[in-house]
């Protein structure tokens, strides 16, 4: 296939752009891609994971069109000053507070990148015991539910006491 830009060199980059559901296919060679200065996957320095990400970030969820809550233009992290608009352009957070500030908007993004939104891995030791207690309580609650469903009430009662005990300790910590 020949590059659709210069019509001379063989096209080595093939990609599909979808804007508002409208699909456009591109077949171009590397040197034209560079000249056009587009951030296209695979083109030397022009491409970064961040420019790809920003494509995922740069949309206003339908629910926010009603004017409830701050719009994407004004949402800003008070800690480092990064705006959501800047974040969606560069695809990187400025500080850890950004995660809290932009939290509502992050779920769809994280879901697309990771298929998940909640951490389940390693926990730092110093904040660990509290989180581990919490995870344990959640796990026991799920088990309690299934024991009750299976009518294993004696076991369920034991679990209930254990959960209460853990909850008390959690509240005290």
């Amino acid at each position, binding site marked *: 296939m020949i590059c659709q830009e210069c019509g001379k060199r063989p096209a080595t980059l093939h990609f599909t752009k979808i804007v508002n559901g409208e699909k456009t296919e591109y077949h171009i060679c590397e040197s034209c891609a560079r000249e056009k200065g587009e951030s296209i996957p*695979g083109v030397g320095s022009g491409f970064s994971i961040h420019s790809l*990400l920003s494509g995922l970030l740069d949309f206003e969820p339908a629910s926010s069109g009603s004017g409830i809550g701050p719009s994407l233009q004004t949402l800003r992290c008070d800690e480092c000053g990064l705006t959501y608009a800047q974040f969606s352009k560069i695809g990187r957070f400025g500080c850890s507070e950004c995660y809290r500030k932009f939290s509502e908007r992050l779920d769809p993004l994280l879901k697309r990148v990771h298929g998940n939104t909640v951490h389940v891995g390693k926990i730092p030791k110093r904040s660990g015991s509290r989180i581990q207690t919490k995870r344990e309580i959640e796990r026991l609650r799920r088990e309690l539910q299934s024991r009750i469903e299976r009518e294993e009430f004696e076991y369920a009662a034991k679990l209930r006491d254990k959960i209460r005990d853990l909850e008390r300790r959690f509240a005290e910590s």
Partner: protein
Amino acid sequence: MARHRFAREALSEWMKVDGPDADIVISSRVRIARNIRHYPFPMLATNQHSREVMEKLLAVAKSGKLKEIGGFDTFVLSDLNELERRILVEKHLISPNLANESRNGALILGHNEAVSIMINEEDHLRIQCLYSGFQIREAWELASRIDDIFEAEVEYAFDEKRGYLTSCPTNVGTGIRASVMMHLPALVLTQQINRILSAITQVGLTVRGLYGEGSEALGNLFQISNQITLGQSENEILDNLYSVARQIIEHEKAARERLMAESRMQVEDRVRRSYGILANAAIMESKEAAQRLSDVRLGIDLGLIRNVRPQILNEMMVMTQPGYLQYLFDEKMSPDQRDIRRAELIRKQLGSKTEHGGV
């Protein structure tokens, strides 16, 4: 003469030992990303902030707390000259980003180069552990131990819901990127590679060629790594990578056996030709060198070429990079001159290993 240990040899100490499945898996790597609480990420940090971060993290190494892991050197990037930084990149000990764009960037480097800890790269702290062969779990365990040592000294940016907070949302959660570098010449020769690689991307893993541009894999070297860092535990992430890599190993082995059974002469001809060219050519482009070295390595693994060390592939892939060549010959070179020097270097390396007895 080299100012620093890392410039003396192209092959890192850890690479000289053969790990399990070393005929296919060249190396296993785990890197974890961490940030310090209350400090902006490096991108938005002031000079003052990033200097404090650097000092805090370097202090952990200087205080001897990493001693139980091994001996370490520390470097402030701005103290290294351009060539030294380039060599570190070519040996995969630091990222191009740390070498060229970091502010108050620093490096804590293990003496055997199996551990390299980058400071003020995209995140405050990036711990990288490398093992030879297929030892992805060992790499994680070491990285996690080092992580614990740092965590005892500095408070990490950690969120109960999102996990370890990172500058880029693609790393958040576990902050782990585990990868295996695989040499897959038989799958490429038998044209099965694309089918396998596209299957890989469907199970949360990604693959890229090593040293190649984009998807092109120079020297049939492929790096396979996890893409997901959030919502899976480290063990799940490693298990997934492990079992996929294990399957690829089996496919590559089967492909090699089939090549030997069905077209042994053609394969032998190919690897011997490549050996002959490497041992005699006067001009050698990097692309051709990578391909020919891959052939020779395949020949060694299949028992068709003897008296050449299998590490020749990795070693030459590093030594024949522009920075290392410039360092070895102590001169700045045009690309054309580099091709001549590269040929000279490979000739010498192959020649010296086969003086007694030949191929």
